[in-house]
């Protein structure tokens, strides 16, 4: 099948603006939904939070920063996942790529004696390339993203295990053979006057960049257009293949970034890290109001979704609610979030 980029007539003259009008308005509406849900969970958490000595423990500054730290990895991955889902794709490989990246960065630093910067850059490139290959396969071979990334998940996990011989690679500091340059330790828990966790800062940075990309770039408009109607997007001259590959590459890059943070936070490269992270990321995206059918949704919604999950996790732990019950509550919230989407105007 050939794509004819000068296809004339039946399409409206300015397709980009049309797609904007058709998809962006409901997107804002549903982003609002996730904000309301987030605010609700926040207020509820304040209300039921345990207190000690008159202080609401949930609102403790350290606790709020801790929530940000806890969601940082899933949040970063979920940003990439949002773009993938916006083009009606899915990426199941993100958790395994996180495992590969954590193993890889630990191996480069501990065993191969790399400096922090080259090791981190190399791992980011690997993540980017991994995503790009998946994007290429799904775009040019026409295999569904679900299948390509399911395979990618196995491949990344396999690579991670081969890289480290199936072992966890411990990261130690303090100089001498087999230790890691101190700079990497910044990722572990806290720094900057001992309060703000660096993983949380990186998450906020990624979030801001993503929000700017969505707001100001042609690329983002192309993403929405492809998700809304890929055929129409192609006919209107949008470089569909390039955009799709880029989207998967971004997802791979962000997963690798999360993997590097994971290695730093837990002082080890673990080939088995990140199992089920893809599901948490998808949950954040869905709660954020992005439709799995593509074209509708927002990064802002995803960020709200990720924070909602983080707050929920935190308050349930603070209340010492049984972890099995936590799963149940999380499940109910995901179903509720997806259920709200039924009321999307264009789907009625």
């Amino acid at each position: 099948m050939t794509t004819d980029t000068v296809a004339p007539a039946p399409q409206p003259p300015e397709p980009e603006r049309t797609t904007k009008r058709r998809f962006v308005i409901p997107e804002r509406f549903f982003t609002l939904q996730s904000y309301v849900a987030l605010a609700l969970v926040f207020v509820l958490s304040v209300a039921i939070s345990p207190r000690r000595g008159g202080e609401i423990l949930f609102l403790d500054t350290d606790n709020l920063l801790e929530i940000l730290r806890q969601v940082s990895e899933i949040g970063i991955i979920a940003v990439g996942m949002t773009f993938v889902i916006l083009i009606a794709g899915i990426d199941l490989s993100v958790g395994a790529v996180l495992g590969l990246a954590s193993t890889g960065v630990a191996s480069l630093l501990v065993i191969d004696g790399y400096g922090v910067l080259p090791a981190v850059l190399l791992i980011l490139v690997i993540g980017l390339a991994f995503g790009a290959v998946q994007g290429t396969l799904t775009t040019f071979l026409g295999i569904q993203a679900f299948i390509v990334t399911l395979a990618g998940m196995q491949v990344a996990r396999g690579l991670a295990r081969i890289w480290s011989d199936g072992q966890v690679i411990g990261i130690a500091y303090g100089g001498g053979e087999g230790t890691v340059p101190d700079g990497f330790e910044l990722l572990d828990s806290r720094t900057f006057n001992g309060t703000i966790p660096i993983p949380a800062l990186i998450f906020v940075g990624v979030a801001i960049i993503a929000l700017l990309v969505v707001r100001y770039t042609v690329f983002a408009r192309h993403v929405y257009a492809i998700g809304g109607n890929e055929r129409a997007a192609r006919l209107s001259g949008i470089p569909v293949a390039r955009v799709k590959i880029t989207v998967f590459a971004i997802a791979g890059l962000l997963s690798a970034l999360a993997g590097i943070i994971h290695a730093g936070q837990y002082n080890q490269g673990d080939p088995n890290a990140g199992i089920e992270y893809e599901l948490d990321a998808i949950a954040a995206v869905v709660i954020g109001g992005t439709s799995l059918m593509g074209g509708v949704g927002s990064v802002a919604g995803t960020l709200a979704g990720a924070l909602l999950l983080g707050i929920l996790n935190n308050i349930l732990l603070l209340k010492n609610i049984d972890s099995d019950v936590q799963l149940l509550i999380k499940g109910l919230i995901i179903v509720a979030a997806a259920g709200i989407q039924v009321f999307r105007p264009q789907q009625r």
Partner: protein
Amino acid sequence: MSHLLPRSRGLAALATIGATAALALTACGTESDAPSGDEPASQAECQGPDGDYLIGMSQANNAEPYRVQMNDDIEAAAKEVDQFDVKIADAAQDSATQVSQVQNFITQKVDLLIISPNEAAPLTSVVADAYNQGIPVIVLDRKVEGDAYTQWIGADNEEIGKRAGEFVAKELLPDGGNVVEIRGLSGSTPAKEREDGFAKGIAGNPDIKIIDKGDGDWLLEDGQAEAQAMFKAHDDIDVVYSHNDPMGQGAAAAAEDAGVKDQIDILGIDGLPIPAGGLKSVETGELTATFVYPTGGKEAVDTAKQILIDCEDVPKTVTLETEQVTKENAAQIYEQNSTE
């Protein structure tokens, strides 16, 4: 909110200063075992028998019977102390979850933290955080790196393996014989220690040979499959040494199938006082012997009492003794250790 925080922190600081002063005046506590240098201000928390104490217990996972027993032991022992309120959290084998859990206990301002870490490296820094903020930390069974904790309580796996080996060398096969070994999960430290210890235990008797080893991954099913294969491959097995009771129970079932149950002895380790545990298996003759791997739950609560109520310093390490269990004493030990 923003103006509330500093005030309550100020109050906390005042309280801490007050408590420290009070302690200094009454000279509460002994100095015997105190590690020198940067000992955190945990003693300042000690309000003695008049306080109410929230204890956070972070468990690596609630899926293994051994760990459920540890929780039960802690809860049973804590019930005896009116001042203690224990919250147990399950990390479900996930170190990241466990880090969040410990962080949450810090936020809850628990008076003492008990932790059985899922993995050492990932938990080290958050445990150190808690310890450096003045929360006494008792580490159970598995360790963390460094020494930023108050006390480690655990049993010596190598010693237990050695006791099992000596039992074989002296009592079961004094004239020599053939042993097969069913190991725990490959790469896990208890499996290696129980293997090394056993080798030392039988070393005194050169006529004992280990003719086969296999991995049962701590599981009954895998232990059974491994034993089945061994019984097919060898017809001269005298003793099966299994790194835990469930794999030994699996081996017993395999021996039954192979029709060799009467000719061989099967040894396990752990000796949990639960209906499906090793003590019952020894009582019924399914296993010849087992060796109690104590959970340390009761001991952890004892330490908590020493720190919080008696205002005492505690030793850095407590190594728990094992107990050899045979048909003669199985019922009695079950009675002693059961928390039911």
